[in-house]
Every structure is written in structure tokens, then in C-alpha cells.
């Protein structure tokens, strides 16, 4: 029984690693079971998993080219625009 428990027990480090690995490739059956058991029992890793997804979504969204970017939050100065136009005129 102890041996079985040891086999199924993951550390938090390992559990959070597996969450990232899962994003890349399917986990082995044992890994899936281990991760399930761990997150059932560990509040901190449950939070971590949620937050990890949240960060993934943020960065993914930020990575999309914003075709429908509402309003640009930063503006290029008039000098900078003039500089680009001058640069193009040289060509």
C-alpha cells in the first residue's frame, strides 16, 4: 500500500512541470493519474493550474496581431512619423 501511494504521489515541483508538459504533448497514463491525484489534494497547485492557463491565454491573446485593435494605446510622435516618411523618400 505504501509503495502504491509513493508511486502515485507527486511533488509540487513535478506536478507543475507536468502541467506545462501537458501543453506540449499528451501525458502518459500514469502521469495523468498522478497529476489528477495531486491536484485533488493540493490547493496551491490547483490555483497554480488556473493561473497558468490564465497566463497562457493572456500571452496568446497578446501574440495575435490586433486587426481589430480598439484604440492604439500608444502613439508614434509626429517627429517619428515624419522621420519614417523622410526615410521612404530617400528610396
Amino acid at each position, binding site marked *: 500500500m505504501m509503495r502504491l501511494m509513493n508511486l502515485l504521489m507527486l*511533488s*509540487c*515541483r*513535478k506536478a*507543475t*512541470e507536468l502541467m*506545462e*508538459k501537458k*501543453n*506540449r504533448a499528451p501525458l502518459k497514463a500514469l502521469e495523468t493519474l498522478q497529476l489528477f491525484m495531486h491536484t485533488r489534494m493540493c490547493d*496551491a*497547485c490547483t*490555483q*497554480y493550474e*488556473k*493561473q*497558468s492557463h*490564465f*497566463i497562457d*491565454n*493572456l*500571452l*496568446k*491573446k*497578446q*501574440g495575435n*496581431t*490586433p*486587426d481589430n*485593435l*480598439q484604440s*492604439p*494605446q*500608444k*502613439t*508614434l510622435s509626429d517627429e*517619428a*512619423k515624419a*522621420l*519614417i*516618411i523622410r*526615410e*521612404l*523618400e530617400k*528610396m
Partner: protein
Amino acid sequence: MEINTELDKHRVFTQWVNLFGDALYSWAFHKISDEALAQDLVQETFVAAYQNLANFKEASSPKTWLFGILKNKIIDHYRFRAKRQSISMDSFDEPTGWFDENDQWKKENRPQPWSTADEHLLDNPEFEIILGHCLGNLPLSWSACVQLKYLGEKETEEICQHLNITASNLWQILHRAKLHLRNCLEKNWFKA
């Protein structure tokens, strides 16, 4: 839009710089967190567009086309950075150590619930600044891998694989980067 003469070309590009310059610059700044560099990349984008106008298909919108060019410029930037900077990850990771000797969360590093986490946060300029700051705190080679991955660059795996001996897989690099990002966002935004 007819572009027959050099004069037409200049007129069109002047219009594009004025119409799309801010949007391109905003996005480049989000991705790079450096004003001067973002400005350079926007300029390079217009120069490349000017030289390759023949590739512009009238079917796509100029804005989409310009964003595509800018995206490649940003990917090139991070690709170069990832290759150049192969510093040791361990020296960065271990002094603060997230986990104790049994590989369980250290008490002070245990993730806390985030009550205000929703995706509209990206529309909040103050949050953008914190996110940029947290990404900026990562070692250059890690943040390059994170950015390349989320820009959808297919060769990310290949580029990032040989950065370090102990973490030879992209997911291991991303795991470490995520631990830092998560903690940084929690300290500076959610629990600030």
C-alpha cells in the same frame, strides 16, 4: 487603389504611416517593451513594405499586410536574442527557489487565489505595464522563448532547445518562466 508612379507610392505610404503608424507602434511596444526599439521596428516595417510593394495583394488589407511584416520583424528580433543569449538558467532559478527540499511549495511562494483575473485585464494600461515589467524581469533568452512561442513561431522548439544543459526542453524553460511570471504578477498586481 492605383499605384502607378513613384509619386503615387509616396502618397500612399504617407497615408499608411499616418493611418497605421500608431497601431503598429502600440503592438510592437506590447511585444518588445522598449520604445526606441519598437519605433525602429515600425520604421523597418515600412521600409520593407516599400521595397516589396509588389508582394502586396490588393485582396488583403494594407493593415493586415503591414502587421504581418512587423510580426516577422519581432520574431527575428527574439530569434536573434534567444540564440545570442545562452546564459545559465540555474543561477537565476535556484537562489530564490520556489520549492523546499522535498519539492513542495515553500510557504511564502504558495500560489494564492486571484480574485480579479479575467482577460479584459489586457485592456487595462496599468496591467499592461506590470505584465511588461514581469516579462522584462526574465532572463533575455527565456523571455525570447516565451514570446516566440506565443507569437506562434513554429521553430521555437528548435531555437530554444539548446539554451541550457539542465532544461533542454522548451516546456521545461516555459515551466521556469511561468513560475517567475506567476509570482511576479501575484506580487505586483493581484496582491499588491
